C-alpha cells in the first residue's frame, strides 16, 4: 500500500526539499511511521509526545480532514494522497 504525501515548506528540510514523497501504510499512523523511517524526525513534528496529532497541524486524506474520519486511525486507500498543512485560517 503506497501513498503520496505532500510536505509543507517548513518540513522540507527533512525531505531534502522535496514537496511530495512516497510512503507506505494503510492508516495515517502507519504512513507517518513509514515517513519517519525514511526521513527521521519528521513524525515528531506532526505528532506530539502523547502520540496525538499536534494542535496546529492539519492532515488530510484526499480532501478529508482526518479529524473528521478517525484521526490517526483514518484509513488511507492504496495510491491515496495525504496533505500535511499548518493550521491557519481566517477570512
Amino acid at each position, binding site marked *: 500500500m503506497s501513498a503520496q504525501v505532500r510536505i509543507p515548506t517548513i518540513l522540507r528540510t527533512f525531505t531534502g526539499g522535496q514537496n511530495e514523497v512516497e510512503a507506505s501504510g494503510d492508516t495515517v499512523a502507519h504512513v507517518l511511521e513509514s515517513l519517519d523511517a525514511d526521513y527521521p524526525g519528521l513524525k515528531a513534528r506532526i505528532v506530539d509526545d502523547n502520540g496525538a496529532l499536534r494542535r496546529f497541524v492539519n492532515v488530510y486524506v484526499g480532501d478529508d480532514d482526518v479529524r473528521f474520519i478517525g484521526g490517526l486511525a483514518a484509513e488511507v486507500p492504496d495510491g491515496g494522497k495525504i*496533505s500535511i498543512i499548518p493550521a491557519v485560517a481566517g477570512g
Partner: protein
Amino acid sequence: MTAVLDTQVPPPAGVRAGAFGNATHLACRACGAQSPLGPFYACMECFGPLEVGYDFPKITRAEIESGPKSIWRYAPLLPVPADIGTFRSTDPGFTRLVDAGNLAADLGLRKLHVKDDSGNPTHSFKDRVVAVALSAARELGLTVLACPSTGNLANAVAAAAARAGIRSVVMVPSNLEQQKIIASAVYDTTLIAVEGNYDDVNKLASEIAGEEEGWAFVNVNVRPYYAEGSKTLAFEIAEQLGWRLPDQMVIPVASGSQLTKIDKGFAELVKLGLVEDKPVKIFGAQATGCSPIVQAYEAGHDVVAPVRPNTIAKSLAIGNPADGPYVLDVVRRTGGRIADVDDETVVQNIIRLARTEGIFGETAGGVTLGVTARLIAEGDLDPDAETVIINSGDGLKTLDAVSGHVGPKTTIPPRYEAFLDFWKGYTA
C-alpha cells in the same frame, strides 16, 4: 537582541531597515520559539502560529492624536515602516464609535457603544488587516496579494491591490452571497470560486502558498502581520472613549484572530501607559451552525474540534478556527465567555440593530448583538458596566439574510387617494 533559531530561514535579502517599524521578531504562540521577521507563519518546531513581537519606544497620546484619521495614526504600534503614509493604501480605520442609547435602553444596559466597522473602505473590518498585510508584502518583495476568503476579506484584498497597483488573486466558496462576489470582481481581481466551504478553500490556499514564489496570501503566509491590524480596533475604541478601556466587550468570532488581537491591543496600551490598567471582560459570539469554540468552551476543553459549518453567518463560517485555543484562553482569563445564537435570532438582531440605531450590520453583527442579548439574559454581562460591541461588516453584503423578513408595507398606484386609503388603515 532577540535569539534566533539556527534552524530558521534567514530573513529575505534586501529587506530595508525599519521595514517593520518597531517590530523586532516573530514568536511562536505555542512554544515561544523565536524567528526573524520574514514571510513565516508557522513555527518550525511545533507548527504553532507566529506572532509579531516589538520593542516599543515611548509613544504619547499627543503623537497619536496628531496622526492621520486612519489606522496609520497607530503606525508605531504596528509592524509597518515609519513612512507608511507615503504608500498607496485604502487608509482604513477610525470608524465611528456609536453611542447606542436606544439599543442600550432596549437591552437594559446603562451604557453601550457600537464600534461600527461597516464604515471602512470596503465596508468591513478586513480593510484594517489587509492594509497591514499589504505593507508586509511590499516590504518583503512579494508582488501578488492573495487570500482564501468568506467574502469580506476578498473585497478588501481586491480593493487594496487595485489601489496599490498590484495583482490580486482571491479564492472564495462558490456558494457565497452574490453581493460579496460582485464586490470583489468589480476591482478586476482574479476571482476564483472554489467548489467547497471556507475550510476547503483555506486548505487549497495553504497548499498554493507553499508553492508559489512571490505571493502574499494575506491570511496565510503574511498572517502574523495581517492579524496585527485588528489591534487598531482596540486602539480606536480606547482613544474614542477618551483614552479609557471599556468594562466589557462582545466580539464576533470566526478564526478568533480579531478577539485575541483586541485583547492584545488593550494590553499594549496599558503597557505603554496610554490608558489606565483595568480589567476588561472579553466575550465572543458565534452562530450555532458554526460554533466549534463555544462547544470547546462549554465542554471545558482547551483544544477545538472542527465542525462543518451550516449557518447564514457566512463571514463567521470557519469550522476549523486556527485561533480557537487562544480565544478560549482570553475569555477564560478575562472572566468572559463565548456563546452562540441560532440563525433566526441572527436575523432578528440584524433588524433590531437597524431599527434602534440606524446601523445595517451584516450577519456577523446580528450574531454579536444576538449573543449580547443572550449574555445579558443569562447574567454574564453586567447591565451597569460600560459595554462595547463590534459590528464588523455591512448589511448590504448579506441582503438575503433579511430579504424575506422586511420589505414594502404595501404597493400602490401613484394616486393620492390610494396613499390615503393605505395610510388610514395603516395608522388606525
